[in-house]
């Protein structure tokens, strides 16, 4: 047999290089001592220390965190309600329309979502004075609307897998519908809720385009800050910040995937 590299490993390697070399170089250079981003001098963590003293970055991080947490929570509530409506209430007028509308934000260009929300907020303000100006509130509302779609999809797929006999059994034993939801439905879909929340939080943390449209003075998110700073030239400090964000996002996504996978495996061995 001729010894030569197979086609698949070569292509896979090239693919991984193409995808991850930029990120890896960013992470590597975040530990560079030199102020020049492209010239390696020696290992140092001084840019991470500098981050902690940068008031502006810490502020932006805190704002991003707040927006992420609040909009993920709101998206969780609304997304779950939407998923329940689609999965548990049988046929109703406009169900097909709702199904389509819920997944529309998944494919809608962010520029359009951002622009339309901006126009909406401006119109609302001139009509009844709320939300007054643009800032934290408008970003939270905007993020809630597009994260909701992701939560709805995740929760809906979990509900579809769920054995509705259990809900009927609880009702048969005397539990009213609300009680059935708390006792049976909620524990069963809990993994989907956790992973849906994590996904929404990560998406909110990542978003630059929509936030830029609907943000106002005093509400600069982390991606917005990084973007504006980079326009003045890339600094190793930004590399360090980006590395931390990558870490958070990776942890969030992996955790979400792991929770879903392990709960699925568990439920399939049970029944």
């Amino acid at each position: 047999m001729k010894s030569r590299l197979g086609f698949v490993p070569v292509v896979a390697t090239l693919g991984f290089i193409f995808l991850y070399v930029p990120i890896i170089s960013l992470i590597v250079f975040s530990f560079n001592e030199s102020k020049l981003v492209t010239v390696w001098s020696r290992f140092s963590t001084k840019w991470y220390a500098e981050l902690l003293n940068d008031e502006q970055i810490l502020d932006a991080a805190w704002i991003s965190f707040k927006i992420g947490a609040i909009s993920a929570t709101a998206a969780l509530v609304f997304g779950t309600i939407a998923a329940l409506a689609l999965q548990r209430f049988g046929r109703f007028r406009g169900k097909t329309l709702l199904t389509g509308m819920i997944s529309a934000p998944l494919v809608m260009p962010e520029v359009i979502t951002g622009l339309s929300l901006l126009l909406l907020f401006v119109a609302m303000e001139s009509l009844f004075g709320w939300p007054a100006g643009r800032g934290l509130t408008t970003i939270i509302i905007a993020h809630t609307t597009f994260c909701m779609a992701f939560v709805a999809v995740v929760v809906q797929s979990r509900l579809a897998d769920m054995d509705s006999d259990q809900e009927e059994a609880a009702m048969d034993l005397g539990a009213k519908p609300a009680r059935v939801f708390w006792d049976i439905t909620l524990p069963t879909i809990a993994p989907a809720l956790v992973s849906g929340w994590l996904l929404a939080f990560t998406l909110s943390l990542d978003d630059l385009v929509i936030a830029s449209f609907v943000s106002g003075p005093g509400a600069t998110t982390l991606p917005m800050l990084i973007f504006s700073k980079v326009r003045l030239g890339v600094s190793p400090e930004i590399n360090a910040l980006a590395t931390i964000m990558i870490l958070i996002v990776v942890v969030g996504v992996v955790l979400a995937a792991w929770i879903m996978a392990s709960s699925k495996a568990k439920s399939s061995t049970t029944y």
Partner: protein
Amino acid sequence: MTTDAISPFISEPWTDPSAKPFIRIRGISRHFGAVKAVDNVDLDIYKGELFCLLGGSGSGKTTLLRMLCGFDNPTAGTIEIDGQDMSHVPPYKRPVNMMFQSYALFPHMNVAKNVGYGLARDGMPKAQINSRVEELLAMVQMEGFGARKPNQLSGGQRQRVALARALAKKPKLLLLDEPLGALDKKLREETQFELMKLQEDLGVTFVVVTHDQEEAMTLATRIAVMVDGKLAQVSTPRDVYEYPNSRFVADFIGGVNLFEGRVTADEENHMKLQSPEAGLEIHVGHGVSCSPGQRMWYALRPEKIRIARDRPDQPHNVVEGMVEEVAYMGSLSVYRINLDSGKQIKVTQPNLDRAQDNPISWDQRVYVSWGSSAGVVLPT
């Protein structure tokens, strides 16, 4: 009989026109669009019965059960349970509990929590729940399993827990959807008898849905055979088997040989059916209300036929045929015999002796015979 009052199983309340039914179903229908899942069914079920709804898939038996426990609302008709109209009472307010085919145990709760769930919903104090749960687990021989999660139990154990949970609230009526469907054959037979004993001890009315005719025959006080959303026959297991009211029922329960024929003689103490299909004039030892020349069918169970090499000494119901196939099944042997008329019939004979000298075998000519009360005459 003085035992009638004590044991409702010996008396047959359905034969007593003055007996008050426990469940009264009147004109019930459930339509899904153009599909009539249940179509205008009337049914009375009496207290203490173990009633089986038997039918193939799509016969409407499960829909009927779901209407009894309230998961489905009838399109038309009424359901009365214990004198109260239940047609539109939600499931959580009915004095009825159900054991699901999938058992539907709550996977995130342990066995004790599962069994006690209904009691907790009724607001029973904790200490009382605990002792009742103990009692129930003992009843289904699952003592000491209270702390286990459902996924740590075997199929048979889950079935017991599901049964205990369904009985926890002392329902007046217990509905069981294919209760033994998920168990293997041996376990199923054991569990059948346990289920019957439990039902007898508790005196709860059971309504069991099943597609397994053997299960229905073993368990039931009465069987309702369902087909296309209608009740084909409602009788005791013996009557359903020995006196089916149609070819469908005869064929659905057990094996049967059907011969088409025309009435040639119709007397008070016997009738005759000329059947070219069987190749003889069938003699029936009792009168049947029919008219001469009418088309009727003669249903004959395989075990009620005798086969022999020598012509048996009887005046009627003897034909000749050729053995096509023999299947040895242990307790009995099944023969496929081609009658001289061309019709193939199925005959079963018990294997009375271990060693059989010169048994009837392939390609042998035999005499096929049966008694004058062996079969049943069916107009439809």
